[in-house]
C-alpha cells in the first residue's frame, strides 16, 4: 500500500513506531481511544514498555505526560480532540505550557469528522483555545506526507505542541519531499481574485472549490496553514495585497481559530474584508461529514459560494 492510500491514523502509528525505534525517549500514551488513534494494538504490541493506556482519565494522561517530558522523555498523548484539549485545559495550561514541558498532544477526530458521535464529541474550539495559550503551538495537517513530517518535527522540537489528527484517508496534496516548517504556509494555488485560507479538513474541501471557481474564471489564491500558531504573517499579507478579499474556512467555530488569526493579522497590518466560514457559533450534532459541513457552511460548494460573493462585491 502506498503512503497516500493509508488512513492518516495508520500513518501516525507508522511514524510513531519509526520514532520509537530510533529514539528510546519517545513514549506513547492513550486514554482508552488507542484503537481510534491507531496505536492499539500496534504500538502496544511493538513497545509494551513505552506504551501507557491510562484509561478514561484525560487529565491524568496530561499530568503524566508533563512529568515524563519534565524528565526528558518525549511523550505523544492522544485522544478525541475535545478530551485532548478542553477536558484538561487547566492541566495543559499549567503542567505543560506554563511549566514549559514539551508534551506532544494529539486531538483525533476533529470537528465534524467525529460525525455519528455527535455534539458531545464534536469539538469546534480546540484551535481557538489552544491558540490562546502562551507557549503552545497548534498544527493541523492536511495529508499523509504533511502528517508524517509534522510528527517527526514534533519529536525533535522542544516546544509544547498540539496537533489535530483526522483519522480517515485523504487525497495527497504533497509528496515524499515535503518538509514541515511551522513558520511557512503553503500556497496551493496562485490567483489574484480572492485569498482563500484553510487548514486541515477544509484544505481538502477547498481544493474542490478552487477547481470549480477556475472553470468560472475566478482565480483564488489558496493558502494552506499547517500551523495556526505560529502563524505565517508574510504569506497572508503578500496575498491580500494582491486580492484585497479574503475567505477563511475551518472545521471549527468561526470565533478565535484560523479565521480569528487571519482577522487579527489583517486588522493590525492591512485591513481587508474577510468572510469567515465554519460553525457560526453553534454546537454540532450527529450526522455524516457531507451533511454537517454543508449545514454548518464550510463544504466545498459553500466555500465556492463565499469566494464568488467576495469577488462580486469588489
Amino acid at each position: 500500500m502506498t503512503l497516500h492510500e493509508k488512513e492518516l491514523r495508520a500513518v501516525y502509528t507508522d511514524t510513531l513506531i519509526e520514532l520509537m525505534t530510533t529514539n528510546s525517549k519517545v513514549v506513547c500514551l492513550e486514554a482508552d481511544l488507542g484503537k481510534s488513534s491507531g496505536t492499539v494494538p500496534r504500538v502496544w504490541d511493538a513497545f509494551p514498555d513505552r506504551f501507557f493506556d491510562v484509561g478514561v482519565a484525560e487529565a491524568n494522561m496530561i499530568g503524566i505526560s508533563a512529568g515524563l517530558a519534565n524528565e526528558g522523555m518525549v511523550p505523544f498523548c492522544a485522544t478525541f480532540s475535545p478530551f485532548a484539549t478542553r477536558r484538561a485545559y487547566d492541566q495543559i495550561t499549567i503542567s505543560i505550557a506554563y511549566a514549559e514541558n514539551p508534551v506532544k498532544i494529539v486531538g483525533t477526530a476533529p470537528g465534524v469528522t467525529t460525525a455519528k458521535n455527535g455534539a458531545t464529541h464534536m469539538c469546534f474550539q480546540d484551535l481557538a483555545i489552544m491558540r490562546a495559550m502562551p507557549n503552545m503551538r497548534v498544527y493541523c495537517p492536511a495529508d499523509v506526507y504533511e502528517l508524517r513530517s509534522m510528527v517527526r518535527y514534533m519529536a525533535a522540537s522542544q516546544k509544547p505542541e498540539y496537533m489535530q489528527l483526522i483519522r480517515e484517508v485523504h487525497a495527497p496534496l504533497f509528496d515524499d519531499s515535503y518538509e514541515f516548517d511551522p513558520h511557512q504556509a503553503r500556497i496551493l494555488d496562485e490567483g489574484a481574485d480572492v485569498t482563500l485560507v484553510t487548514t486541515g479538513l477544509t484544505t481538502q474541501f477547498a481544493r474542490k472549490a478552487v477547481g470549480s471557481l477556475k472553470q468560472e474564471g475566478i482565480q483564488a489564491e489558496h493558502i494552506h496553514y499547517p500551523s495556526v500558531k505560529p502563524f505565517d504573517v508574510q504569506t497572508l499579507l503578500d496575498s491580500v495585497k494582491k486580492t484585497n478579499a479574503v475567505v477563511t474556512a475551518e472545521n471549527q467555530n468561526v470565533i478565535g481559530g484560523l479565521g480569528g488569526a487571519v482577522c487579527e493579522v489583517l486588522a493590525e497590518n492591512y485591513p481587508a474584508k474577510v468572510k469567515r466560514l465554519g460553525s457560526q457559533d453553534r454546537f454540532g450534532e450527529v450526522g455524516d461529514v457531507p451533511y454537517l459541513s454543508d449545514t454548518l457552511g464550510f463544504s466545498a460548494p459553500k466555500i465556492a459560494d463565499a469566494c464568488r460573493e467576495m469577488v462580486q462585491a469588489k
Partner: protein
Amino acid sequence: MDFDKIESKEQLDQLAKEFRYIITDIMCRAGGGHIGGSLSLVEIIITLYFRVMNVKPDNPRWADRDRFILSKGHAGPTLYTALAYRGYFPKDVLLTLNANGTELPSHVDQVITPGIDQTAGSLGQGLSCANGIALACKLQNKTNHVFCIVGDGESQEGQIWEAGMFAAQHKLDNLVVITDYNKMQIDAEVEKIVSLEPVVDKWRAFGWEVFEMDGHDWDDIHATINKAMAVKDKPAMIVAHTVKAKGNVCYENRIECHFISIPDEDERNRVIGGVCALDDDEPFHFNWTEGK
C-alpha cells in the same frame, strides 16, 4: 400491555428480547453503534422504567418525577427504546437513530429528546450532575429518587470519585447509582488498562452503602434497587455484574463489541442474526410497521 404493572417473568423476558432486537436493528440501520455497553444495560433499564421509576411519559418534565442520569451516555439506544415503549415518542422514531437531523443522537441529549433528564456523553460528568439534581430535590423537599448509571471504564475518571466524596458528605440518600460492571472498556478489559478493584471496598470506604447484583437477573435487580432506595443517610451504590453485548452472540463478551461498524447488508444480516440466534424456538423479528 399496561407497562406500569409488568411483573411476570414472561413479559419481562419478551420485552428484553424485543429491546435487544430493536437496539441491534436500529444500530445496524444507522451504520453502526455502541452495541456492547447498550446491550449490557437492557434488564437494568427495563427494571427502572417499567418496575421502579415514577414518571409521566405525557409530561416528561413533571416536577416530582424520579430522575435518571445515564452518565455513560453512549448507551442512549437502550434508554431511547425504553422511552419509546413507555410512550414518550412513537416507536418508529427509533429508526432515526443517528440520522442527519435526528432527535435521537448516539449520546443522550436533554435539549432535543423528550424524557432525557441530563445530557451526557463526555464520560465522568454525569455523577456530579446527579449530585446536583439530588441536592436540588432535597432542597425542595421532594420525596423522589435520582438514579444514575456509570460505566466501569468511566469510573477511571477522577471526577467520579470527587462526586463520590460529595454525595457521602451531603448524605444524598435519594441517590441510587449503578455501576455497569461489564469489565470491559474500548482498548481492552478494565483489568488490563486500570483496575477498579476492589471496587466494592472502594465505594464503601468513600462512605456509600454498597450492594452487588446480577445485572441480568430480574428478581435480583428489582430487589437490590428496592433495598438501595431504602438506605438512609448515605448514597447507595449498586455494583451490577453484567456482560458486555449481552444477548447478541456475534459480540457477547468480546472485546471488539464496544462499537460496531456495519458497512453493508451482509454484515447487517450477520449481526441481526446474532440476536435472533439466541431465540431457539422461534426467531424474533420486530415488525416496525405494526409495532408503532
